[in-house]
């Protein structure tokens, strides 16, 4: 009994601690990984502009962030605003955890939808309801060793699957055992190939899987062929102990990866290789192809009691000058075209940067992933099915049919929900 009353006292004290209002508001901001470390620096500027708002950045590890966000909502402990992975937005939206942002955006003339990359902008409105504002963008494309290509007599970086196939074969003839690194523990490379196809990955508005379609079979076939022909080693990211060292040594000439590796390669490759490598858009079935619209957004929680302040912080972080500073600190690429056109310290603009330019062009050609809450799980299943094909356990036909059956099972509740309303 006594213990319980003590608990109540402690609880009351904690509550009053939150509610106590001495003119300043305290915002809870959840961010992940490197972004969380950098957020503190950005926020100093925000606090100077808003002296009555204090921001507490709480850092989550990427691997646990998804669970934490869900549990926080279930436990009624969600923050005021958070960095949310693009692909998680549909889930958080289905929960009704997020504040619709359109009314807020309408009141902020600085934020123009047209300034954002179209594919990225689309990922932030699951079910037609805009709940996130892109913070930084991310996609997958090719990191290329041009010098090795030239040595093998390949004049141009491949732009479609046919020339890519030929280039890989040529490189192997020239003694490179596995010219392409295609991490098998990530679903992104295969998903990018699938998004290059005309049809959707899920059909009928995300009611059923569309994996047995000719389009997905083509993507999976191309992917599996790379690993089965030996163009790519069947290795995960973790198994390649030091990607940068191996890239520098010329163990492989193509690597499908994302923007974070620009900084890593610049830092870790020997200086004589500075002009030997570049980035290039992902080759598609016929001509340059699409890729994934990834990245993270800023979202505000419905239960927040400080929405105007939280919105002030979101729009501050979306301001072009702050976005550029954010890029300088992290290397995360900005979602707004105007930031890409701003002059950089060392001269030129980001869109003209030797290594970022291909990303700029790729972002104009990204496709959003299906906006269903079950997506994360479906992507996981897709990767497992691909691993079975690559490992020779299933034929493509068996794998895609089994995958469709699994995915239809996962989407059963969603169909019921859609039919009910």
């Amino acid at each position, binding site marked *: 009994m006594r213990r319980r009353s003590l608990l109540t006292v402690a609880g009351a004290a904690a509550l009053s601690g939150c509610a106590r209002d001495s003119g300043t508001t305290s915002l809870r901001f959840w961010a992940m990984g490197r972004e969380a470390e950098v957020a503190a620096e950005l926020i100093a500027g925000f606090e100077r502009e808003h002296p009555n708002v204090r921001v507490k950045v709480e850092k989550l590890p990427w691997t646990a962030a*998804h*669970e934490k966000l*869900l*549990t926080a*909502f*279930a436990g009624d402990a969600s923050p005021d605003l958070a960095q949310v992975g693009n692909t998680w937005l549909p*889930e958080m939206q*289905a*929960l*009704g955890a997020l504040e619709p942002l359109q009314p807020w955006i309408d009141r902020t003339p600085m934020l123009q939808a047209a300034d954002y990359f179209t594919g990225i902008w689309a990922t932030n409105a699951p079910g037609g309801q805009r709940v996130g504002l892109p913070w930084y963008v991310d996609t997958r494309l090719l990191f290329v060793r041009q010098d090795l290509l030239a040595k093998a007599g390949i004049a141009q970086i491949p732009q479609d699957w046919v020339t890519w196939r030929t280039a890989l074969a040529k490189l192997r003839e020239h003694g490179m055992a596995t010219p392409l690194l295609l991490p098998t*523990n990530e679903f992104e490379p295969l998903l990018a190939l699938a998004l290059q196809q005309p049809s959707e990955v899920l059909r009928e508005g995300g009611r059923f899987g569309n994996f047995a379609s000719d389009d997905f079979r083509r993507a999976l076939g191309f992917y599996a062929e790379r690993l089965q022909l030996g163009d790519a080693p069947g290795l*995960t990211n*973790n*198994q390649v*102990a030091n990607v940068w060292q191996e890239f520098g040594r010329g163990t492989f000439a193509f690597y499908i990866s994302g923007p974070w590796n620009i900084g890593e390669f610049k830092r870790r490759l020997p200086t004589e290789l500075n002009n030997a490598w570049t980035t290039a858009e992902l080759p598609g079935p016929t001509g340059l192809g699409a890729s994934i619209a990834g990245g993270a957004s800023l979202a505000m929680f419905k239960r927040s009691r400080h929405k105007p302040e939280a919105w002030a912080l979101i729009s501050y972080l979306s301001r072009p000058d702050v976005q550029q500073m954010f890029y300088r600190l992290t290397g995360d690429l900005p979602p707004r075209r105007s930031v890409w056109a701003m002059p950089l310290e060392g001269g030129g603009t980001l869109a003209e940067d030797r290594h970022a330019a291909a990303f700029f062009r790729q972002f104009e050609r990204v496709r959003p992933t299906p906006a269903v*809450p079950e997506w*994360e*799980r479906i992507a996981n299943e897709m990767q*497992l099915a691909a*691993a079975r094909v690559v*490992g020779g356990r299933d034929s493509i036909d068996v794998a895609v049919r089994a995958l469709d059956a699994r995915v239809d099972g996962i989407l059963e*509740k969603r169909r*019921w*929900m859609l039919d009910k309303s």
Partner: protein
Amino acid sequence: MRTSHRESLAAWAFAAPALIVIALFFGVPVFAGLALSLTDFDIYALADIGNLRWQGWNNYVHVLSLPLFWQALGNTAYFVVLGVPLSIALSLAAAVLLQSKLVRFKPLLRTALFAPVVTTLVAVAVIWRYLFHVKYGLVNYTLQHFGVDPIDWLGDPHWSMPTIIGFAAWKNFGGNMIIFIAALQAVPHDLYEAARLDGARSWAQFRHITVPNIAPTLLMVAILTTAGYFQLFAEPYVMTQGGPLQSTVSVLYLMYDEGFKWWNLGLASAVAFVLFVIIVAVSKGLIVLQRRLTGEGA
């Protein structure tokens, strides 16, 4: 009549606090879990309880029809069948060694052998991951000196589970070792003296005196270890995240994935109850086996 009634009332009154606590913190959650396992509670239901559907036994049928469940059960059985005997053999060997008159620095050794039990699993798992790294690990480095090609301990689906078994056995044998030491100290010395007079060698002494005398302890340790090992979770969670190719997904890991990664709490509860039934059945089986063995022995 009246006094006995009053006595039993008093007894209930004294037991009441404990019973209430058990009912509140054990009974209620278990029944809530059982109820949950008969529904399809998921994120849609979390958003609006009106989206909850009664599933009856469907969840259980679904769990039993999942290929991944059977794979997880197979992985768990693999872990238990290999891990429990290995772990018990290790702890018994260590306990016998520590009882032996030949060994010096016993307190130091006892502490050293018990140390893995009290260290943090996550911290140790990180070190094991370094030791078993395919390129830079000490284990492969040592093996290379004997001309063995490097093995991808945690990345090869054939080796991932054996590595986890080794890790779990190493991490846990100390606890059982302490129990065995206590049991060994209770074995009367005159039995060994008599056996030695009859000319029994040390292996015969171990086989015919030590083992029968510590049989009840052995059974208890076997039951506790088996029940514990069926709940394999932290080791694969920290070391392999269930991979490669789902070769280290245990039943509990599947439950965690369903429940907290995909938020299908209904299905996850069903997995939990299936696991519960399996553990009860196996423990019962061990007890029956022991009864039959000792019954024949007598």
